[in-house]
């Protein structure tokens, strides 16, 4: 698994990207290509689309590094957001093409991005709801209640390492459940 960057390393990397340092772009790619590609593939499903999204996201990071505020979020979150948006844009364009070709009503043609986000969120929340309680609870606490891993461990009465293991297992089960399922259906 690629090694992601710590907070200080992120600040330095963004400074180098802003200065036009190509080695910084390569480092950014090596650290986060799997994350960006994984997000894109889960939304758009098609590999060619996911690869295009990867190119777009990292090129955007290169040309708009100044837009990233390290005080507001982490690089991984910023990149994941960009990947999600680009992938949703792709799905909407595909829907538009299919509608133009087949003159079929398409629920996503004129739907705002916020509504598509709602569909994605709904699919993920449904998958979370389908987890066994011992995996669902830590996921809910970490992502939807904003608790730390330490707080989750205390709440569950388990060691911190056990809490981390349950979270990792929960994410693996979610990934298996969502595998191959397009988050946003645009048939």
């Amino acid at each position: 698994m690629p090694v992601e960057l710590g907070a200080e390393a992120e600040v330095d990397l963004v400074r180098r990207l802003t200065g036009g340092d190509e080695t910084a772009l390569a480092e950014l790619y090596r650290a986060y290509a799997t994350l960006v590609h994984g997000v894109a593939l889960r939304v758009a499903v098609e590999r060619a689309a996911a690869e295009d999204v990867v190119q777009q996201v990292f090129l955007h990071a290169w040309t708009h590094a100044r837009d990233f505020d390290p005080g507001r979020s982490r690089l991984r979150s910023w990149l994941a957001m960009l990947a999600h948006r680009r992938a949703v844009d792709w799905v909407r364009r595909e829907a538009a093409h299919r509608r133009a070709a087949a003159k079929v009503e398409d629920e996503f043609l004129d739907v705002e991005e916020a509504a598509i986000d709602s569909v994605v969120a709904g699919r993920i929340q449904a998958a979370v709801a389908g987890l066994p309680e011992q995996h669902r609870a830590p996921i809910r606490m970490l992502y939807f209640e904003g608790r730390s891993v330490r707080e989750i461990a205390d709440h569950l009465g388990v060691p911190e390492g056990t809490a981390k293991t349950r979270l990792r297992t929960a994410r693996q089960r979610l990934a298996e459940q969502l595998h191959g399922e397009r988050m946003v259906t645009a048939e």
Partner: protein
Amino acid sequence: MNPDDPITGLLADLAAETGPAPARDLLPDLLAAARLASGHLALPAPVDLPPAARPYLRQVLALTALVEGPAADRPATPVVNGWTAAQVLAHLTAVDALAAQALGLPAPAETGTGVEVQARTDSLLAALDPTDLPGAAALWRRQCNALLRFCATGDQARMQRPVRYLGIPLSAPDVLLDRAFETWIHAEDLRRALGLEAEPPAADDLHTLSDLGARLLDLTWPEPADGPVLALELTGPGGGVWSVPRGATGARASGPAPAGGTVVLDAVDFCRLAGGRLDPDAVPHTGDAHPEQARRLLGAVAALARL
């Protein structure tokens, strides 16, 4: 969605832990796109080009970085054949123009006169200040731009038809690969002259260029077509195995071990040998082929440089 959204965070963690990673390395294309975005070259983006043209774009960008960077302060440095960097670019312009003509593009008068490489190169050298690197670079980039834009927007059906290039029947994609190859060879010459480290093509591109060289061995192979088949094994990133001479099914070796044995060498050395930059009698190689067979194969590779 925004970066702080819990769904974004969960998606990011799912993707980071379970991937999948891209099936191929997208970094070379990304760096090419970044250089285009940063610079003033107005070249097509990789995504707009057919796959066969992308190695050429990448080598054009790499050589441009050299010309505008380390070479800019040393325009009088001898590079190869007694040429300066400007003269090397003039030579590339001449051959790029011949490639463009082979693909059906007009070749402007500024790209030289003559239908042979030597004559066209000489016509450009005669009009060139050997130390005018910016001028030579601007002309070379205009020709590169024209060729790449033709690939991006031109008649794609024409790109599928065989053409005649430097007296050799080739496919249009192979013409572009040849341009990528020669651009890299001369970028290597320039790096060497400036005391810089070598920069081989990315593994995928190196494999593609090696494949071109292996296929073109049919033109220089000295044995009769029914002579012993050898396996050419190239090692390192971009390596692979090819049969020489090609069978009816193509160049790649498959099935039982070839009767003539195997010749093994590094993929980058193979390309340098094919580009006339290594001596076939001195290039490091191993394998179980008879030494005389190995010598003939390496000689055939070196003969590619004289095509």
